């Protein structure tokens, strides 16, 4: 249903239209019935072609008729000679052109044209490309036409560089031709492929799964061509900074491959006799071939996710049989195998230690910087310079601000933290429609920076207070954290993912708007929970705390729940281990 603008008409015009429609209807019905009776009798002749043609001219979306027509044409191929068949199919192409003039977005017509082009004894691909050009000049976003053009190019073997030159022309005449940029993204990796990445020496050859999508990896374009593309796209966004096309394309050019899948952390605790494993992406432990080997012996264990809600989770836990590692005088060697990915991680639990872990730091994993290619620092720096220049000319342009933020994070997330926050502030003002999204994105970056700082300091304390945090993320990176300070932010909940903080001992989250504690679920080491001035309003909200066996101290001052009748006795019953309760 395509948009039709309202047009007023007189009563007389209406009446004339009505009479015309009645006439058309009679002809249509007669033609349809003639058509089907022929079909029933298995008649495939010129008259049948005529009749279907009449019907399809007025209704090109009657898919069954196109099928009938294809049957007729295939039959005619067997009883006529090549010259005649050529003429018939050429007539078909003319007919299709008239159909497409009426409705250039008809699936049936384009599909049929594609079919005809493959059966024509002597196809005229130049003519087909010419048709596409005309069609695109009327509507350069007609994806039916683009898709058809791609098919023609493939069938006729038009060289990729010629098509690339075609996009050059289109983009050159109009930078905001989004469909051309898209097409370019598919051609570029074909013409200028990068040599495949060498295998890292210490890993077994990996199978990629899920399979990479063909379009999302610009690392498939060689560097020399990439630099030329940067120039082209810069011309575009300097010319019109408000056009999305160039910015999206630019983002893709700067992009980088997905990081390898692996086990990012193994943690083992003697006290709980428990092993926690963190993966680089959410998995379903039941189906990925997870194997735990202790001192050379495979162990039969049950893996569970941190919260019953999650079938897929980055963090999985299992309990070892009692007595296996409880003796602190024994040393143990653990290996967790992710057999599906042919990778594993070892962890040694030394004598005298009650816990141990093995983890790649976020920096080693290039966890947060790997949105863009890090080895091309000089390139990124010059890109940042260009964008900063543009920003001076167009201080309110959101695409420019977003790209600058991205480049800064790629180059030096901690070094550019102040500028990044300032840019986010501007961004929220100039693109206020998406300000909630930007707040969220900013929260994410602040969390990433805090994780990096925590690692540089080599401590297990995560402190991010008074940073306007609206959301929590990367909780799978906080598996080893013992103390967390989230005070004075804008958090509304501790989501189920929070249960990934398996080592947490102290939680400070005063002065937020928290009304949901789902994530404080079976946290084995949690002793202190400080939630002053939040929005906890019912006893039910506090239910998850009952699953934390070591909880001793709870501060609920300034929460609506403290006004509940008999709250103190209710809480004593719900949380018997708590000795220091503040209401």
């Amino acid at each position, binding site marked *: *249903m*395509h*948009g*039709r*603008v*309202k047009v007023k008409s007189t009563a007389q015009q209406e009446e004339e239209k009505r009479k015309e*429609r009645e006439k058309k*209807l009679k002809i*249509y019905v007669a033609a349809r019935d003639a058509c*089907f009776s022929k*079909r*029933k009798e298995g008649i495939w002749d010129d008259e049948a072609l005529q009749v279907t043609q009449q019907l399809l001219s007025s*209704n*090109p*979306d*009657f*898919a*069954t008729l196109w*099928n*009938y027509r294809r049957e007729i044409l295939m039959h005619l191929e067997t009883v006529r000679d090549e010259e005649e068949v050529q003429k018939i199919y050429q007539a078909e192409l003319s007919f299709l052109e008239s159909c497409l003039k009426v409705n250039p977005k008809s*699936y049936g017509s*384009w*599909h049929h044209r594609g079919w005809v082009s493959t059966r024509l004894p002597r196809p005229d691909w130049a003519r087909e490309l010419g048709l596409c050009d005309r069609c695109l000049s009327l509507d350069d*976003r007609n*994806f039916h036409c*683009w*898709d058809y053009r*791609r098919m023609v190019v493939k069938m006729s073997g038009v060289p990729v560089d010629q098509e690339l030159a075609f996009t050059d022309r289109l983009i050159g005449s109009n930078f*905001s031709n*989004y*469909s051309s940029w*898209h097409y370019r*993204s*598919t051609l570029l990796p074909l013409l200028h492929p990068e040599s495949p990445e060498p295998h890292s020496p210490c890993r077994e050859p990996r199978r990629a799964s*899920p*399979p990479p*999508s*063909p*379009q*999302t990896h*610009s690392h498939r374009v060689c560097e020399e061509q990439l630099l030329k593309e940067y120039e082209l796209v810069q011309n575009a966004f300097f010319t019109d900074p408000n*056009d*999305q*096309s160039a910015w*999206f*394309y630019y*983002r*893709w050019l700067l992009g980088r491959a*997905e990081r390898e899948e692996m086990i990012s952390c193994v943690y083992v605790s003697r006290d709980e006799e428990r092993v926690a494993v963190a993966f680089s*992406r*959410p998995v*379903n432990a039941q189906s990925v071939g997870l194997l735990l080997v202790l001192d050379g012996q495979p162990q039969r264990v049950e893996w569970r996710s941190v919260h019953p809600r999650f079938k*897929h989770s980055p963090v999985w836990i299992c309990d070892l049989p009692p007595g296996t590692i409880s003796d602190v005088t024994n040393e143990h060697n653990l290996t967790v195998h992710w057999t599906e990915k042919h990778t594993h991680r070892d962890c040694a639990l030394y004598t005298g230690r009650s816990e141990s872990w093995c983890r790649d730091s976020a920096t080693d994993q290039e966890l947060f910087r790997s*949105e863009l290619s890090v080895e091309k620092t000089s390139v990124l720096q010059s890109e940042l310079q260009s964008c900063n220049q543009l920003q001076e000319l167009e201080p309110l342009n959101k695409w420019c601000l977003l790209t600058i933020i991205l480049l800064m994070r790629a180059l030096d997330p901690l070094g550019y933290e102040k500028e990044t926050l300032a840019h986010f502030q501007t961004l929220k003002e100039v693109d*206020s*429609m*998406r300000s*909630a*999204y930007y707040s*969220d994105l900013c929260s994410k970056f602040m969390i990433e920076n805090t994780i990096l700082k925590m690692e540089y300091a080599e401590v297990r304390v995560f402190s991010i207070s008074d940073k306007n945090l609206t959301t929590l993320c990367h909780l799978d990176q906080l598996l080893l954290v013992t103390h967390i300070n989230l005070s004075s932010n804008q958090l509304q909940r501790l989501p189920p993912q929070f249960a990934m903080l398996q080592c947490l001992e102290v939680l400070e989250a005063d002065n937020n708007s928290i009304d949901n504690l789902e994530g404080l679920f079976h946290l084995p080491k949690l002793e202190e929970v400080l939630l002053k001035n939040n929005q906890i309003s019912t006893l039910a909200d506090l239910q998850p705390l009952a699953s934390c066996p070591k909880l001793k101290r709870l501060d609920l001052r300034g929460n609506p729940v403290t006004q509940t009748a008999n709250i103190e006795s209710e809480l004593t019953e719900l949380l018997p281990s708590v000795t220091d309760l503040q209401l």
Partner: protein
Amino acid sequence: MAEEESQFEEFDQIDFLKDRHVRFFQRTLQVLPERYASLETTRLTIIFFALSGLDVLDSLDVIDRNTMIEWIYSLQVLPTEDQVNLSRCGFRGSSHIGIPYSTKGPGVLHPYDSGHVAMTYTGLCSLLILGDDLSRVNKQACLAGLRALQLEDGSFYAVPEGSENDIRFIYCAASICYMLDDWSGMDIQKAIEYIRGSLSYDNGFGQGAGRESHGGWTYCAIASLCLMGRLEEALSQRELDRIRRWCIMRQQSGFQGRPNKPVDTCYSFWVGATLELLDVFQYTNFDKNRSFILSTQDRLVGGFAKWPDSHPDPLHAYLGLCGLSLIGEPSLRKVHPALNITQRAFQHVQQLQQTWRGSTGSCSRQH
């Protein structure tokens, strides 16, 4: 105070005219203007828009459910006595081929009579919306018909004689399997590969590999993966974040379907529901979205159009309502973002499925 008053005035001008929309859909179910003639072959989809629209408006009581149910069953392509046409079963779009009216089997063999995947999908939805228990649906035949439509690359044809094939029909197939609680109707893994292959450089989904990203196909991709229960398996966290970014950038006031295209009412649902499935719909601007949708409202005949000052049509009327429902418009029922029916109808599906599982004693046969 003065601010509040002027806000009120604004609201008056863009108020939601519920009754008009009810009457719009009623008329849709009775007779359609001549310019819809070309859609005759897909009439069942228009019925679905009207029925689901009325459901969202909590006004299904204005129609005769039983008559409607009978008519829909008359569109079922049933197996013949000798079951030779099993791979052609499903639901047809209307009676345009000329098969004699019948709501029960055995089926009649006709060389051009076959199910159409989008009609099977909307037919089942419509029956469920009307409260039917699907007891007269030949589930095995529908699934056989569905299997016959899937290609090697994972995508689906619309009809067994062949047609174009792309991601739209994967969505139809996934919905059918979900509703019938039986995934033997499709090869999920292949479908996932096709979906992944359709992810474009800018992180929207095209109709297929190498094709331009588009709000409608992005909805088909994400909703299909959600129905299959494979969203987080098929897409990495980073990919999901990028997809979120592409989608959230579609809001200009209402939503556009592709960059640099004008906003269009229906994308308030296609993109809005995708954002909802990806858990970030709350970051969109509800006021601007609502204002745009209501600017396409036809104050005289009801319904919504794709743009302001254009004729309304059932598709945009229905999806406009769904778009408003997503942002919590008070008088509208909530819509299930992946299945595109009301939560009420969805609960009916779930209850039905429980009774099915109870009686056969087997769990959903999900691969």
